[in-house]
């Protein structure tokens, strides 16, 4: 039956040769190569749960009276967006599970992109020929952050509405065109004519996911075409890929991983409450709560806004609010431009124009590793700076002290991190056998009394690494007799 299906497809599409090449595709097995899969499968969960949510959510700022299950809101005038979101949480079967899983999946999606990007950076996988893939990846990071912001703003609750107000002011702060852009996007002076919710919605469910989906296809397509990188090891060269084949081994592992990712996200979605919008109430522009932060992946921007001194440039009848423009527009733009440009920057610095299919161990490139660690720390410090009020409350320290502390450590800690990481890398390189699993030695004594050692058997996984890699076998244990016989028989070229 399989044979007939393969022939049926091959007669129409010619897929046998390419299909077998695809099934034989080799995937190296290192654990850090799976971080991108976390992102991929979180995206799948986002789509699945998102489709469910989109069947119930109403993208409208039009006011209705809430008639659902949550008592304190009963009889209140709220927007349809808010009412339908609370309805999803209380009155739709498994609605809250889907909503929370969707939100956790978004957080984990961006978190896994961050660790995946760090892995790519620290192992030098962005070098030629993979600069294109790096650019695609950074674009997906950017779009993912934006889409996340749009998504959690859809329920029109007090906390996310405050974020929308801040976004409007950031847009407004752009010199020359800011007020125009703000009025255009929102349909008037803040809060606008209510069009912002449906605009966020269509961007969030259609425009951006389509772009991200297409970029994922490009990202994976480049990966298939250029083949995955690998760490140096026995039998691994710049001109091969060593690992396990797509079918059946990698397919089993990655499909299982997809199930497990979904499971973790569902367990979070059912047991860890996230964004309890019914406790926040409908957004009103004259109401505010304390301890309002954006979701974690926007935290670095909020932290930058908090620690920025209150410089504003006023002159010749115009104002440029530098305390908004510099952290939210200029700094954000510099960040992403710097990320985009990194392969080029590193090439200029190292003068290395060769093709690389073997990865660096991070310790072998101490300057790059230290610099990357310092940058990570910098953004992490900014992320922590977005919770100044929560920290001041938690540690019983004055708000003013916390803020000034952050103004200092946002720069001091990355510098310290650079030197510490550099040192650690060099020490790890100097230490013998570090990171390798040591084999137990059996001590033997000969009859004459001489001691000798023999190593024990390697652990199952490690033993395989001592073999020479072979091509993926097409036939296992038998060769069909057809191959020996007469002409006129379909043969496949390798």
């Amino acid at each position, binding site marked *: 039956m399989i044979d007939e299906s393969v022939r049926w497809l091959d007669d129409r599409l010619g897929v046998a040769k390419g299909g077998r090449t695809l099934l034989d595709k080799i995937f190296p097995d290192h654990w850090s190569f799976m971080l991108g899969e976390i992102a991929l499968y979180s995206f799948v969960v986002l789509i699945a749960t998102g489709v469910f949510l989109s069947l119930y959510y109403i993208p409208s700022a039009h006011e209705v009276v809430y008639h659902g299950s949550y008592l304190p809101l009963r009889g209140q005038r709220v927007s349809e967006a808010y009412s339908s979101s609370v309805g999803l949480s209380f009155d739709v079967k498994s609605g809250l599970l889907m909503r929370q899983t969707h939100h956790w999946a978004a957080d984990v999606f961006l978190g896994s992109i961050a660790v995946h990007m760090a892995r790519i950076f620290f192992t030098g996988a962005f070098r030629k020929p993979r600069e294109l893939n790096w650019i695609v990846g950074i674009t997906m990071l950017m779009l993912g952050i934006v889409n996340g912001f749009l998504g959690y703003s859809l329920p029109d609750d007090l906390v996310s509405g405050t974020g929308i107000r801040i976004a409007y002011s950031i847009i407004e702060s752009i010199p020359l065109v800011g007020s125009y852009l703000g009025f255009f996007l929102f349909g008037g002076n803040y809060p606008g004519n209510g069009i912002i919710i449906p605009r966020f919605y269509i961007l969030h469910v259609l425009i951006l996911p389509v772009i991200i989906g297409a970029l994922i296809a490009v990202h994976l397509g480049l990966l298939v075409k250029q083949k995955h990188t690998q760490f140096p*090891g026995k039998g691994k060269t710049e001109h091969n890929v060593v690992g396990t084949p797509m079918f059946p081994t990698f397919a089993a592992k990655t499909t299982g991983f997809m199930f497990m990712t979904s499971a973790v996200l569902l367990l979070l979605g059912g047991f860890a409450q996230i964004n309890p919008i019914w406790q926040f109430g409908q957004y009103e522009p004259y109401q505010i709560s304390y301890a309002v932060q954006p979701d974690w992946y926007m935290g670095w921007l909020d932290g930058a806004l908090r620690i920025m001194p209150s410089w504003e440039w006023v002159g010749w009848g115009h104002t440029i609010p530098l305390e908004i423009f510099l952290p939210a527009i200029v700094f954000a733009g510099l960040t992403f431009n710097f990320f985009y440009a990194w392969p080029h920057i590193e090439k200029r610095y190292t003068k290395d124009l060769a093709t690389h299919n073997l990865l660096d161990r991070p310790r072998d490139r101490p300057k790059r590793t230290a610099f990357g660690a310092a940058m990570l720390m910098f953004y992490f410090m900014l992320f922590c700076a977005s919770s100044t009020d929560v920290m001041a409350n938690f540690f019983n320290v004055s*708000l003013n002290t916390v803020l000034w502390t952050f103004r200092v450590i946002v720069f001091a800690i990355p510098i310290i991190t650079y030197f510490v990481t550099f040192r650690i890398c060099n020490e790890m390189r100097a230490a013998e056998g570090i990171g390798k699993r040591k084999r137990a030695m059996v001590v033997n004594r000969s009859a004459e009394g001489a001691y000798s050692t023999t190593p024990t058997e390697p652990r199952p996984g490690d033993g395989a*690494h001592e073999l020479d890699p072979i091509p993926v076998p097409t036939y296992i244990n038998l060769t069909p007799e057809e191959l020996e016989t007469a002409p006129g028989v379909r043969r496949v070229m390798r």
Partner: protein
Amino acid sequence: MRSLFRGRYLVPALLLVSVGLFGLLVFSPGSSSAASDSGSGSSGFANSGSSGSGLKTSSGQFPETPGSSSSPSQSPSGNGIYNVSLPKSFIAPGQALFAANCASCHGSDASGTARAPNLQSLGAGTVDFWVSTGRMPLADSSIQATGKRPRFNKLQSLEISAYVQSLAPGGVKVPTVNLSNANVGNGARLFTLNCAACHTITGAGDALANGAYAPSLHYASTRQIVEAVRSGPGNMPHFGPGNISNAEVRDITAYVHSYIQHPVNRGGFGLGGIGPVGEGFVGLLIGVGALMLVCFWIGDRT
């Protein structure tokens, strides 16, 4: 396929799992609320074990006139807050307690010294708030007083309050609070407008400027809530009857006493009620962390 059933671990594991699942399903605390959750919808208290209060679907606890067609800004008649005149018999023991514990800073006639302010005409309710929340006696007046285990019991607190009230008229009185006609919807609205900016929308409290902080609302009794709203302790503003009427204070108190102190955490563990800060840490450390551990298991180390 036959080997599946010969596995030594298989049968005991199956037994264990099925018994466990069966037991959990039958004895789960959530099953009793299932019907009211999806059906009548008369109560917002979807019981989840994580709220920890043991509150069942309690449509009896804060009965809202169901199907009420009145808009949230109207409250039923009877405003629920009644000022109490403390018995004269409280004054003498109150004076003794005051002399032993408070006079050293506030002066024997509560008129204040360099260390502590004048308490006269602040009212019994003000004093009762500070004493019953444990904020007074205060060891160090240079930092904001913290609510802690009170040194005096409720009766003693009222006695001290009665004594201070007897020194001068006026001020906030000790209230009795009847929440039976409260409108929690109205309370939610008023809470958001007047209280959330300092205490946060979930009542978790947060740091204010220059070393002050707005405390968490999770431990206040209904009487303390009313006393605090009216007397504006410390940096808290004074909300008098012209600003928030008695009926409105009753609604706010009902909302705080129910949905703030026993929040509907239908989604699971509340993660502290501080919003995306806690969610970010959980998502990254537990979500991404667990999945990275799975990657570590699946993949190789070279």
